[in-house]
């Protein structure tokens, strides 16, 4: 049972998950619950184990030191981090707007924000092309006025990843904001703070753990982004070919390389999750 609980714990949809951490009651675990739980656990872990078992450990040093791998990894980390930054700059204010103000159609806006969560990423990529492509609704003006073209560029990768990842951040931060006591903002107002000052100096520090959780979710989502990226930005090595794209392409002609690349992504994900989780539990004792 313990690994299953840990697993549930690692999924970090904000502080709410921390609040209702499961607590055992003792006694026997009923079979109708235990059996599916073990199968579920195996279902999640066996593929990862297979990755480790079938990994071409002997050829690994060569595979990993090849410049193509490093190029893809660096590009992935850079674009995912940039996309997370974009999501933070735009998404936190959006979350604040949804959580703290009342305006007509707020519920519809909220539903629209969550749409990319369930939208197939490829569809997102097509939509981005139609909006920001060279002949797109907005892209046309970007091109003729500023000479900016986004599709099939590294910036385009960031755009595609941010489009897919930002809703995760917005939903996570909005939930944290709703749970946070808005009377602290009133207290700040009585001390002479404008709404923006209150947000910057009181609300933001108080919801920082929720923002961090949302940022990690968004970052992980951006790192693994495939469909929107390949549709909107294509797959040019060194420019738009991120790790997931190179894994997929390597699988066609060099399966060993694909496995090695997958292991690298797995390691990066685990490292980041573990590192941030320790920091949360440290700060979580508020």
């Amino acid at each position, binding site marked *: 049972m313990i690994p299953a609980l840990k697993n549930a714990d690692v999924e970090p949809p904000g502080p709410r998950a921390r609040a209702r951490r499961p607590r055992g009651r003792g006694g026997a675990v009923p079979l109708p619950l235990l059996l599916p739980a073990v199968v579920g656990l195996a279902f999640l872990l066996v593929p990862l184990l297979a990755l480790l078992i079938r990994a071409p450990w002997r050829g690994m040093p060569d595979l990993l030191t090849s410049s193509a791998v490093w190029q893809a990894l660096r590009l992935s980390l850079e674009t995912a981090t940039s996309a997370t930054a974009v999501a933070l700059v735009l998404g936190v204010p959006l979350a604040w707007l949804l959580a703290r103000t009342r305006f007509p159609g707020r519920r519809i806006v909220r539903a629209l924000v969550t749409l990319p969560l369930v939208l197939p990423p490829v569809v997102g990529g097509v939509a981005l092309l139609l909006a920001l492509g060279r002949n797109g609704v907005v892209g046309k003006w970007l091109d003729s006025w500023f000479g900016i073209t986004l599709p099939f560029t590294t910036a385009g990768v960031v755009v595609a990843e941010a489009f897919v990842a930002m809703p995760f951040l917005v939903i996570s931060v909005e939930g944290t904001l709703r749970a946070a*006591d808005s*009377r*602290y903002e*009133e*207290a*700040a*107002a*009585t*001390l*002479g*703070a*404008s709404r923006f*000052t209150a947000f910057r*100096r*009181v609300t933001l*520090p*108080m919801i920082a753990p929720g923002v961090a959780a949302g940022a990690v979710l968004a970052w992980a989502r951006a790192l693994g982004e495939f469909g929107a990226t390949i549709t909107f930005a294509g797959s040019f090595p060194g420019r738009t070919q991120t790790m997931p794209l190179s894994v997929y392409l390597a699988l066609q002609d060099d399966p060993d390389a694909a496995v090695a690349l997958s292991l690298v992504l797995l390691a990066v994900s685990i490292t980041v999750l573990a590192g941030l989780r320790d920091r949360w539990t440290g700060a979580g004792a*508020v």
Partner: protein
Amino acid sequence: MSGGDPGTEAGTGTGAGTGARDGGVSGTEAGADAGAGPDTGAGPDTGAGPDTGAGPGADLGLDAHLVVDRGDFRLDVRLSVAPGEVLALLGPNGAGKTTSLRALAGLTGLTQGHLRLDGQVLEQPERRVRIAPERRPVGVIFQDYLLFPHLSALDNVAFGPRCHGAGRSEARALAADLLDRMGLAAHAHAKPRRLSGGQAQRVALARALATAPRLLLLDEPLAALDAGARLDVRAELRRHLAAFEAVAVLVTHDPLDAMVLADRLVVVENGTVVQQGTPVEIARHPRTDYIARLVGLNLYRGEAEGHQVRVGPEFVLTGSEELAGPAFVAFPPSAVTLHRDRPESSARNAWRARITGMESHGAQFRIALAGAEDGLPLAADLTAPAVAELDLREGTEVWASVKAAQTHAYPA
């Protein structure tokens, strides 16, 4: 709750209000003398003419008519408080006390009425005037203090001055000075969760005073404290309030807090003012059941004719005062005597009653009685031996009597 002797507490309370006012607590001088501003330097050319806005006397202080309409609840309260005065809004839960406080702070908008502070209109819906909370010279101490958990005590106090444009070091110096005066220098760098209830309250007070407000609002300032800390903190808070030179309004449901801390009480029930006056006046002459219970008196309303007050169709109480017209009659539970048989003493007021509840308070028993037949409901205080001797228990039928000399009648 209090029951005790509000009279003496109230006496000291009013005394303190007028006492030492050395401006000890007010941090900065900004805005502290708004009234005197306009006529400085204007003297020479206006000569003998009556200078405009010079008279600080009439306009200073708080003048408010708070009307807040929220469908099922309507608040309609008029308040007028002079600088240096401490006013307590006293009332049961849901009476509209906290709404009044929020309206004064600007956190809840007025539906009608007006709000003026030191002559400046802060809010007047009729004229579409509404100054935002952050631009009002108001300081608030919230019920659970709402100290910012991520900031040290010092930075909590420095927050207000920073928002008012002070530099970081300037604000911190001011905050350190305030905390020092509150005896909290040693805790300046502690986070709020490391502070005791009493310390947190002093930090909250320092934070509210740091912006030199012209109106200080306190929402149930002692409610978050346990009984042990309350006594000390109450005494200390009274000293600070007495030294505060601007208007202070506090909200409480605890009559003892109100009587110790405030110079004047305004009792609010169901969104309206039912009585106001000094603590002594209110304790002596309660005008509603709620206040009578708060100050521990039995209270009845009726028609007076000479020494007699008719409080029920068939029931007349005899008092010591001569009155005519609508009147209240009040007497303390300690003035009540209970008997197994009809008393034949000099007590003129006697009626049958049934015991509905008994509670012990130290060596005393507070006994709640419902009137039987035409009798009045009342509370009586008896000693433990008396209770034993009369063999009293819930449901027992007794005779209650009160001497005329121990009742107190006053016009309604």
